[in-house]
């Protein structure tokens, strides 16, 4: 009830703000000259993530930010997560030295693995159905040189995409052959100094440095196949990272019976901590290829994501300290075939067939035999496996009633078969003999959906978009996800938008059916849902743009893992989240100088049966600022970007019994990048960058005290996970015409 108090007043206030801004801006709009007006038109973004149709971003329903390949190159971006943090608006990531966590607009959920953001690449959804997983760091396996642009579609987005699109949709569009013509060879290397406790930089000696490298080869080529024009774009790459090393304070670690835990040879018995040297690395070989042939587009993608995490938690609770035999591995294989054609001048039809396979493996090596669910005679290997395979088809038709694109109706159906399963094994680590198998389960499910979208521009300055999607999912039941949006060209180059949308996320196999020593299944859990209302005003002044928006969201039936008794937990629909806030963005250019920035502020509260509380980990204030200048001739382009987050409560701030409650302080990361072609060597270009983070920790408790312990005695101060504070890297790219 506390959450509802004052809601109407706040909502009214939020939506009055754009009107006030409207009046303010109306008086200040100046008339630009013809060249500025043309340049401004050429600066308009064309997007298709919000409505699955190509449209100008200002006409699209909801708020869309576009991150271009040029900006990613210019500002030293190496992953989708970095692009979101440094160049996006409304979404934010946190890096617990594991796969990054993504959230937005004041909500970020721990151990989410990208579950609440839909990641789409060239129309193909990457979130898999075993754990809802989608990665946004290098583990995404999407070569950045191949990316044309990334659209961040904010707000609930199930109306066209179905589940997972609760924060929004990250729509990655890869380049056409013309924009990636020739052969491309990329080499990239990075270094980071050794870190001591609390993020201090302790050694720059060559032998103490952590490092990463990336090797890639790509091709973009136009050709003729079967007498038809065709385009091939592809890139294969290998990314590897090892270190830096970290120093962790010692923490006492005991077994359930109170005896000291044997945490392996690299730390004293019963004492987790010391320097991590062998448990922070990543390896991601990946390949992405697309062939466009006439009206058909074929995509294939494959990747393996292998990683070791230097803290306990995030799937590695059962591991010796600094144990190289403990790791996680994800593997993805995807194929997608799309066909589009037109019947008559007004009806467009598209068909898409897709097939994906995914598996997950976690190995946790522990010298403590009792760590496995079936105690072993010697050291134990805890092995968790999950897999999902799905194949399906989406048919979509769009009818243009007027022949001018002003009144169009889109109707689509999507059906798939998915097979999902998993198991947990207890293995004698020395011999490989399986001591026991728990929770082995595999199931085949049919999932279907139908959606309808109506776009209407009754007069040139009003753009309406309404629609709904009906999803049938055996997990979580059936859902209808509506959306209604309107964009008004209120005056010269000013656009006011209002939208309402809903989204849902069906429970994953992991949440509903996974069984392990610590977790029991709960097949009765329901889908999470979110409703969102937002409004924004965007004004263009020549080549300068400014946007201010407000939002209000209501999240229901949120799933959390809760203890059932002393030893086991299960997922339950236990909470709701209520939040509101603002986001603002500006970008522009004056000659060779470019700038941009965004800020998002939110007020978020989670309601549980116990009462109302803040939401751990989720930044309530975050954003970025950037500026670059292109120097003449062979002088480099100089680009400075920063991303910042405010103070955040740690993941165990509310239930860890730490004193004081752990918080990660406000932090900013600054990145300076120089890029240019290499003089005298046609086709060769470079990029060098240095990145420094002012904060030393992220809001995730590290070590054995990370374990849930609501009834534990006060445990003193928590140790938080460090950030990699200083990174320098250089990229060389050689482009060879074909």
């Amino acid at each position, binding site marked *: 009830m506390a959450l509802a108090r004052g809601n109407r007043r706040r909502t009214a206030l939020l939506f009055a703000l754009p009107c006030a801004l409207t009046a303010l801006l109306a008086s200040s709009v100046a008339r630009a000259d013809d060249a500025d007006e043309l340049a401004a038109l050429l600066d308009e973004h064309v997007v298709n993530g919000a409505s699955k149709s190509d449209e100008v971003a200002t006409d699209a329903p909801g708020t869309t930010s576009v991150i271009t390949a040029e900006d990613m190159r210019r500002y030293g971006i190496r992953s989708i997560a970095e692009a979101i943090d440094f160049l996006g608006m409304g979404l934010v990531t946190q890096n617990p030295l594991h796969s990054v966590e993504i959230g937005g607009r004041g909500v970020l959920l721990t151990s989410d693995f990208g579950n609440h953001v839909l990641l789409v690449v060239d129309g193909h959804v990457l979130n898999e159905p075993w754990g809802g997983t989608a990665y946004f760091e290098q583990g995404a396996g999407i070569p950045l040189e191949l990316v044309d642009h990334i659209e961040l579609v904010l707000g609930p987005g199930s109306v066209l995409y179905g589940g997972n699109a609760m924060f929004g949709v990250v729509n990655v569009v890869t380049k056409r052959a013309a924009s990636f013509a020739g052969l491309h060879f990329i080499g990239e290397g990075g270094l980071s100094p050794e870190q001591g406790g609390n993020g201090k930089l302790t050694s720059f000696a060559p032998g103490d440095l952590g490092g990463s490298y990336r090797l890639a080869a790509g091709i973009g080529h136009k050709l003729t196949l079967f007498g038809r024009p065709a385009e091939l774009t592809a890139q294969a790459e290998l990314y590897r990272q090892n270190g830096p090393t970290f120093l962790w304070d010692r923490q006492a670690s005991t077994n359930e019976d109170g005896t000291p835990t044997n945490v392996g040879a690299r730390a004293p018995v019963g004492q987790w901590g010391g320097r991590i040297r062998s448990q922070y690395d990543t390896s991601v070989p990946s390949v992405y290829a697309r062939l466009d042939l006439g009206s058909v587009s074929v995509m294939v993608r494959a990747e393996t994501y292998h990683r070791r995490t230097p803290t306990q938690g995030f799937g590695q609770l059962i591991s010796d300290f600094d144990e190289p035999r403990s790791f996680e591995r994800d593997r993805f294989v995807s194929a997608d075939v799309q066909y589009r054609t037109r019947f008559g001048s007004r009806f467009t039809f598209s068909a898409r067939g897709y097939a994906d396979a995914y598996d997950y493996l976690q190995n946790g090596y522990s010298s403590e035999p009792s760590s496995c669910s079936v105690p072993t005679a010697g050291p134990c290997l805890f092995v968790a496996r999950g897999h999902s395979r799905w194949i399906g088809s989406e048919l979509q038709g769009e009818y243009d009633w007027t022949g*001018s694109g002003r009144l169009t109706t889109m109707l689509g159906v999507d059906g798939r078969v998915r097979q999902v399963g998993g198991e947990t094994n207890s293995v004698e680590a020395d011999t490989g003999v399986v001591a026991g198998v728990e929770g082995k389960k595999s199931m085949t499910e049919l999932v279907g959906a139908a959606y309808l979208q109506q776009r209407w521009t009754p007069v040139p300055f009003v753009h309406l978009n309404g629609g709904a999607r009906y999803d049938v999912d055996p997990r979580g039941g059936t859902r209808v996800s509506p959306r209604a949006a309107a964009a008004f060209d209120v005056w010269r180059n000013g656009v006011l938008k209002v939208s309402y949308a809903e989204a849902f996320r069906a429970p994953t196999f992991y949440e509903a059916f996974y069984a392990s020593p610590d977790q029991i299944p709960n097949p009765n859990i329901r889908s999470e849902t979110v409703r969102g209302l937002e409004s924004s005003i965007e004004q263009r002044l020549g080549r300068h743009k400014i946007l201010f928006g407000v939002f209000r969201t209501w999240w229901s039936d949120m799933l959390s893992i809760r203890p059932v008794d002393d030893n086991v937990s299960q997922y339950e629909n236990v909470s709701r989240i209520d939040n509101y806030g603002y986001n603002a963005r500006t970008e522009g250019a004056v000659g060779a100088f470019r700038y941009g920035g965004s800020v998002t502020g939110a007020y978020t509260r989670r309601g549980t049966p116990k009462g109302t509380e803040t939401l751990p980990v989720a930044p309530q204030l975050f954003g970025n600022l950037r500026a670059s200048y292109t120097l003449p001739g062979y002088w480099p382009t100089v680009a400075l970007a920063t991303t910042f987050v405010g103070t955040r409560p740690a993941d165990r701030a509310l239930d860890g019994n730490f004193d004081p409650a752990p918080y990660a302080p406000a932090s900013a990361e600054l990145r300076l990048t120089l890029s240019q072609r290499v003089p005298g060597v046609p086709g060769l270009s470079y990029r060098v960058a240095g990145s420094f983070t002012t904060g030393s920790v992220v809001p995730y408790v590290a070590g054995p005290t990370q374990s849930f312990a609501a009834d534990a005695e006060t445990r003193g101060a928590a140790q938080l996970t460090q950030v990699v504070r200083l990174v320098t890297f250089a990229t060389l790219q050689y482009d060879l015409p074909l």
Partner: protein
Amino acid sequence: MKALLLTIIVLVALTIGSDSWAETSRVPVHLQAQLTGRLGTFDRNFQARAGTVARVLVLHKDGNADSVSAATAFAKALGEIHQVGGLEATVEEAAFIDGAKLAVRCRAQKIALVYFAAGLESEMSRVAQALVGVDVLTIGGSSLYAVQGAVVAFDLEEARPKLVLNLRSAKAQNVSFKAELLKLARIVE
């Protein structure tokens, strides 16, 4: 997997007999129309060519649904703008026949601007040859048009519209662009 294989076979079969989607411009037609409306002001000879009213001819390929659809939508969008290059505009849509007939029509009817909708890319080089010496601004809906000889074409790069200019064709068709436009465009020969 059998279903996927079957789907692929069916799609390949459909592809061989279909028009290419790959060449279709992804710049929305109403944005193309807005850009077209402004382009005339950057052509020093546009007002002298057009006189008091800018006559615009929008061409499509007969029997090509994509082409007809794009042409119709463009003509309507440009018609709503009313002005091209600062002059009142009249817009007419027609099926493309050949370059020679187009040249005759441009001269006879004092056409100031011709827009080629998707589907006519393969005709463009012959059209450009036929239009040598004809005072007319030609615009194509995708970048391939400029490569093949249209004076201006629209492309989409990194989610932004891009102007592609063919200066050889511009010179041959008495189009003289201001430097401000050249700075904003990609040039092809």
